[in-house]
């Protein structure tokens, strides 16, 4: 398959170990209280405006091109436009993840003027009673949809992100239809992760595996269903030399407290930008170096799995399960329900179906986890 120019540059950054993309949560505070959210919404000492601007300067210097600002809700920070302005002055390609509730006409105009690339907005259902029950904010669907219209009126690219869980698992077609009507892109994600305090009760919201089968075999959601659900080809030497994803190779995550992790879903502390230069953490942190050293052939269970070349195995979720070299059960589940072929992780445990709930440890500030 021909690589696009952008994926070619992504591969080049990966090979050179340049952090081409960084995700920054500017706050964990939020105006919604989503039932599945893993964050502690209290402010435990967020980076100041000056600190974030300094980090952005360092990221530009390090070669970062793509910045995603997320949270919490980014607009809970009164200085968010100042941060955005600084980021655009440094010529980052900027994506914002938001619930959009606080975006009105004026904010939409300012976002367009600042040259933001994409705004990704969470929509859980096309039905207000379902969406609002998940966000626990009355009228939130109505407000979010109004904001999407303001953004679209400005000609901005909007992606609707549809996180699926038990309460809304049947609503993806409605949300997809809504996205089409609003001229927005649609993306779905069935991943639910534990809360920062280790509480795993939210995992009960994960949709049952059997429903994943239905989702993975729906061409409206996965495109070419035959390709998507095809049995894995025997792994090649190249597959075994490969790496799981870009985490720690060309991507990383920075928390509102300045902690640096390989990914937003990989709570392995690697350093803090309040104490060290970003480039020192990126280049010399032993944890970053360990993450980027792991090839598929080094994975004790997964290297012998027939899915090793095609699995979406997340090393962060594997780390949360106990070992960054171990299997990620959530991804074993996806591989199995996609193809109906058992994974090595299932076979070694004598399971005919993957376990749906495994204990995971979530991201937390470095000081708290020390």
């Amino acid at each position: 398959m021909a690589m696009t120019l952008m994926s070619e540059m992504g591969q080049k950054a990966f090979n050179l170990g340049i952090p081409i993309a960084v995700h920054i949560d500017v706050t964990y505070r939020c105006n919604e209280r989503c039932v599945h959210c893993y964050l502690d919404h209290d402010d435990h000492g967020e980076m100041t405006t000056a600190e974030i601007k300094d980090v952005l300067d360092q990221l530009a210097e390090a070669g970062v091109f793509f910045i995603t600002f997320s949270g919490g809700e980014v607009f809970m920070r009164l200085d968010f436009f100042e941060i955005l302005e600084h980021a655009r002055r440094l010529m980052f390609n900027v994506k914002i993840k938001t619930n959009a509730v606080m975006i009105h006409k004026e904010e939409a105009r300012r976002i367009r003027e600042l040259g933001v690339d994409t705004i990704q907005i969470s929509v859980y259902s096309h039905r207000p009673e379902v969406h609002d029950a998940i966000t626990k904010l009355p009228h939130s669907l109505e407000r979010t949809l109004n904001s999407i219209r303001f953004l679209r009126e400005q000609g901005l690219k909007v992606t609707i992100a549809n996180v699926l869980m038990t309460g809304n698992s049947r609503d993806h077609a409605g949300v997809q239809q809504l996205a089409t009507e609003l001229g927005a892109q649609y993306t779905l994600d069935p991943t639910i992760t534990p809360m920062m305090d280790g509480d795993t009760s939210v995992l009960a919201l994960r949709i049952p595996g059997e429903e994943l089968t239905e989702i993975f075999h729906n061409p409206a959601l996965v495109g070419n269903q035959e390709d998507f659900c095809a049995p894995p080809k025997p792994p090649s030497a190249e597959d075994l030399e490969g790496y799981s994803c870009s985490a720690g190779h060309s991507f990383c995550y920075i928390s509102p407290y300045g902690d640096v992790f390989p990914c937003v879903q990989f709570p392995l502390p690697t350093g803090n930008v309040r104490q060290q230069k970003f480039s020192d953490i990126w280049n010399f942190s032993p944890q970053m170096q360990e993450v980027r050293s792991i090839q598929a052939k080094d994975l004790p269970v997964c290297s012998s799995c027939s899915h090793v070349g095609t699995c979406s195995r997340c090393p962060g979720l594997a780390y949360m399960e106990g070992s960054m070299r171990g299997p990620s059960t959530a991804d074993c589940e996806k591989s199995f329900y996609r193809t109906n072929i058992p994974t090595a992780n299932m076979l070694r445990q004598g399971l005919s179906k993957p376990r749906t709930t495994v204990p995971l440890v979530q991201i937390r500030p470095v000081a708290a986890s020390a």
Partner: protein
Amino acid sequence: MPENSIYIARSTSIAARALAGEMMVMNPTDSTFFTLNEVATAIFQAADGQTPLQEIVRDRICEQFDVDPEQAQADAKQFVTELSTHGILLVSDQPLRGETP
């Protein structure tokens, strides 16, 4: 437009970053993504809105790269025209400033 009065400035609506000697440039409005080679990167980086294109090519390109001056001027004009149609560069017969985000 006479060559000595072509001024170019980088549009501030774009995103840009150098990656191992190649400049990545993206226009968020139409999602066009370019990479510029070393010579094109030198022109892009010198596009301050104040220096005529002819001067940029003479001082930055012909000085640093082993190119035929006439060919370099023609190539530069073509490059500038292409990038301006994608909103990456602003072109004027007067000195100009990039838009402030």
